[in-house]
C-alpha cells in the first residue's frame, strides 16, 4: 500500500476543502478523497503502524481504558495489540483511539521490551492534555458527595475572587 499525494484541491472555505490521494499498489491506481478533518488526522501522524500506542475507547470492550501498543497488523480493520498485564489479542480499529505516540518496539516484541517501552508511553500519555483530561474525569468519578460539595464551595470561592479582580 503506497500512498502518493497527487493533488490537493481546496474549496472556498475551510469546511469545503477536500484532499485527493492516489493510492498506488500492484493492483493499479485508485484515488481517495478525504475531508479536511480526516486529512488533519493524517497530517497529525496518527497512522496505524507497528509500535503505535492507542487507547481502547469502547466501553463494551473488556480492555476499555487501556493504553495498548500495536504489535502486529492483521488487516486494514484489525490489529494485534498488547500491553503489560493483558493477553495479546486482535482488536478492531473502530474500538481504538489513536494517540500520536509511537514506540520503536517493532513487530511482536517480548514482554520485557514491551513493558519497558510501555512505561515511557504511559508517562508521556499521562502528561499530555488528553491524558490529563482522562485523569481528571476518573478523579471526578471517584468523588463522594461530600467531596463534590467541597469542590462546589471551592469553585464559588474562586469565582468570587475572579469577579472581584475583574470588577
Amino acid at each position: 500500500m503506497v500512498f502518493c499525494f497527487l493533488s490537493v484541491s481546496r474549496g472556498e472555505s475551510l469546511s469545503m476543502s477536500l484532499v485527493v490521494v492516489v493510492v498506488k499498489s500492484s493492483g493499479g491506481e485508485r484515488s481517495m478523497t478525504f475531508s479536511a478533518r480526516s486529512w488533519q488526522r493524517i497530517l497529525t501522524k496518527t497512522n496505524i503502524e507497528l509500535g503505535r500506542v492507542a487507547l481502547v475507547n469502547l466501553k463494551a470492550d473488556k480492555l476499555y481504558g487501556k493504553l495498548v501498543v500495536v504489535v502486529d497488523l492483521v488487516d486494514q480493520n484489525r490489529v494485534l495489540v498488547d500491553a503489560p498485564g493483558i493477553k495479546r489479542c486482535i482488536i478492531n480499529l473502530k474500538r481504538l483511539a489513536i494517540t500520536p505516540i509511537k514506540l520503536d518496539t517493532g513487530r511482536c516484541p517480548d514482554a520485557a521490551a514491551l513493558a519497558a517501552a510501555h512505561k515511557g508511553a504511559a508517562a508521556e500519555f499521562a502528561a499530555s492534555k488528553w491524558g490529563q483530561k482522562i485523569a481528571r474525569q476518573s478523579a471526578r468519578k471517584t468523588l463522594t458527595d461530600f467531596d463534590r460539595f467541597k469542590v462546589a464551595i471551592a469553585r464559588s470561592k474562586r469565582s468570587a475572587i475572579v469577579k472581584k479582580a475583574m470588577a
Partner: protein
Amino acid sequence: MKRGGNKKFRRASKSTAKEDDDEDEYRVVFHRKRKETYHQYQIVGRRVPTEQEPTPQVYRMKLWALDATRARSKFWYFLSRLRKVKKANGQIIACNEIFEKDDTTVKNYGVWIRYQSRVGFHNAYKEYRETTMNAAVDALYTEMASRHRVRSHALQIIKIAEVANEDVRRENTRQFLADDVSFPVVRKTLRHDSKSQKTTFKYQRPNFAIL
C-alpha cells in the same frame, strides 16, 4: 447475554388462569443467539468388525465443524465418498476437539477449498491473516457466503496450512507483512458505548454559518 437460552415469549392473555403467578409470567425476554464458531475436530472411525473382517481399516480425519455432532456427520459424509464405509455399517472410535496452542501471534493461513456455486464446482485458494486456524475457517465461511453466496453445506475444505511470509500469494495479505506499513484510519465514526445507547439517528449540530 445468557448462554444457550431459548427465546421466551409469553403473552399476558392467559393472565386470568394464573393470577397468583409472579411477574415473570408476563416478562418478554429475548436471548440473542450466541455466535457459533468453527472448531477443529479429530474423528476416528471404521467399519463395524465382523467375523470375516475382525480388524477393519481405521480412518482418521481432521475437520472443522460448529460442534462435535456435526463433525461426526461430516466425517461420515466424507468417508462414504472416499471409501466403502457408511454410517449404517460403521462406528466412531474417537471424536476429540483439537485446541491450538498459540493464539497470540498473527499467522498467514492458506486455505484450499472446493465449493459448489450455482454454475458448478470450483476449486479455490484463499489466504487469511488470523491468530488461529479456527478463526481463519470462520473468516472463510463468512467470506464465501458474502462474496460468492456459498452456503456452508456447499463448501469443503481440502487443506489448510500456515504460509510463510515469502510464500504468500495474495497482495491483500502481503501488504501487511512489511515492517514499515503505515496507513490512516479514515471515516472513523463515533460509536455508542453499549447497545442500549444505540440510536438510529444521531443529533448533530448543523454545519453552516449565516453571514
